């Protein structure tokens, strides 16, 4: 410990060490830890009238969580959110893996820059506007219905936004690039000679991917899946813009709690959502056998 401070002061100086302690301290304590703990504390207290706060009724209780686990509708929405987010993640992975591989290892030269530009442009446009574009396509009088009517396939417009389909489709579109870039980044570092060597030894394309490319791309796949799942499960905009009353999302339940001024209940629901995302991340780490460090490179 004494060596630690001695070395730190020697390398970075008093001002340097103070700078690190102050900046990281503020961030860690006042922006990460305390707000999180306070939210957790909120979730463990009952909703009370202002005069009762701090009074005898203000005690820790699991009531808010019990409310959640006994509310059949909320539980159903919760599981639907998990399930749909999982589908979004899988579809995005299926679409992105070939694209990332193509960009990283097949195409060469100036074409890469152009294709990357093609990926970055939609990435930089506001998430809400990306979802809005799909609203225009899927609306009752939208482009898709008009096209189908024009082609004589249907007579009356279909309400695409009735189920969860529209939300899932829109989310896949909105978050797909969070899957492409992490996978692309790890695949780029794969030595092309390894692929040539494997092919030279007579391995089929399928086997090359299973034995060489996939193991190498594991950290990228893990981070892409974690990010996509987290964004999908935590999205507010997609169900707002593309959903119908029948496709209520868990974040909307949280939102409703806050709008009804039941912050304690809302905090409990938010904690549940956070736990879900953490569990998903740890499952990803286990499945792909990567460390947190590789996950955020």
């Amino acid at each position: 410990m004494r060596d630690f401070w001695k070395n730190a002061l020697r390398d970075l100086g008093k001002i340097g060490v103070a700078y690190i302690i102050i900046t990281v301290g503020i961030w860690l304590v006042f922006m990460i830890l305390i707000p999180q703990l306070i939210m957790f504390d909120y979730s463990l207290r009952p909703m009370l009238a202002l005069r009762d706060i701090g009074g005898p009724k203000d005690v820790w209780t699991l009531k808010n969580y019990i409310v959640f686990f006994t509310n059949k509708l909320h539980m159903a929405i919760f599981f639907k959110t998990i399930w749909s987010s999982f589908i979004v993640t899988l579809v995005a992975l299926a679409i992105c893996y070939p694209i990332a591989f193509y960009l990283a290892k097949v195409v060469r030269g100036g074409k890469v820059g152009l294709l990357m530009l093609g990926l970055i442009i939609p990435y930089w446009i506001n998430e809400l506007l990306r979802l809005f574009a799909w609203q225009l396509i899927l609306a009752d009088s939208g482009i898709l219905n008009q096209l189908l009517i024009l082609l004589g396939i249907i007579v009356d417009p279909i309400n695409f936004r009735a189920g969860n389909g529209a939300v899932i489709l829109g989310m896949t579109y909105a978050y797909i690039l969070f899957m492409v870039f992490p996978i692309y980044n790890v695949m780029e570092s794969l030595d092309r000679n390894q692929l040539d060597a494997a092919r030279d030894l007579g391995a089929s394309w399928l086997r090359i991917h299973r034995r060489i490319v996939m193991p190498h791309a594991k950290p990228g796949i893990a981070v892409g899946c974690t990010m996509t799942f987290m964004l999908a499960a935590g999205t507010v905009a997609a169900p707002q813009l593309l959903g119908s009353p029948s496709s209520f999302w868990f974040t909307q339940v949280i939102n409703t709690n806050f709008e009804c001024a039941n912050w304690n209940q809302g905090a409990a629901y938010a904690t549940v959502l956070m736990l879900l995302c953490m569990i998903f991340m740890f499952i990803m780490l286990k499945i792909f056998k990567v460390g947190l460090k590789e996950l955020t490179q």
Partner: protein
Amino acid sequence: MKSSKSIFRIVVGAYLALFFAYMFLPLIFMTIIAFNANEVPQITPWKGFTFMWFGELAKDEQMWKALLNSFIVAFSVVAISVPIGLGGALLLTRLQFKARDFVYGVLVSPILTPGIILGISTFLFWDSYMNVPGGLWTAILGQATFITSYCMLLIMSRAQRFDLTQEEAAFDLGASHRQVFWKITLPFLRPALISSVALAFMQSFDNYNTTLFAIGVEQTLPIYIGTKLRSFISPAMNALAVVFIALTIIGAITYEYRRRRELIKIR
């Protein structure tokens, strides 16, 4: 052999075409609608080419106020996240301590947390414990919580490639810690600091989830868009999207142009 290769090429080409159509067609439709005089944001019926939606957008004072707020928030987030991110990067790359991996995990956790949770927790802390009502300030802090993690990772990846003997050489030649930092370390980190400024600005400017819960009654541009899209949909939103798309394309092309020029300079 040859024919199987050409089939492969056709499949790959078709897949790419489909993928980029999926990425760009919605944006193209949105752009076309922005120029249709139809009140309902649809391509058909086509009621003639017009710039009126851009005019309508420009007349919307709420939009301008939200835009101004977005700039205030984004600049503040940059001012908070980049210096703290630098501190975090120095902590994790320059100091050796046992809990290093744990601290790293905690400092990157905001990236892996859903945005709404950061918004909610920031709001709860400041609004009810510190008596700071939700507004731009809470939005700034909520966004900065996770944007700082991005900045830190960006700066770290460059700091890891730093050759420490350069600092030693500077010390050896009589430089003080302050001089070493300003003349050796900071110039080396400069490209990463510039990218993290750009990243922090864009992340903040685009943020919806965290802001929505933290900002109270104020509006940034994404909140304004969200409100508009939920209530009354007008092609003015398409006009706004076109402005975004145009700015993005200009930005991307300038970036790519400058990057290529840099590459030529290095050679």
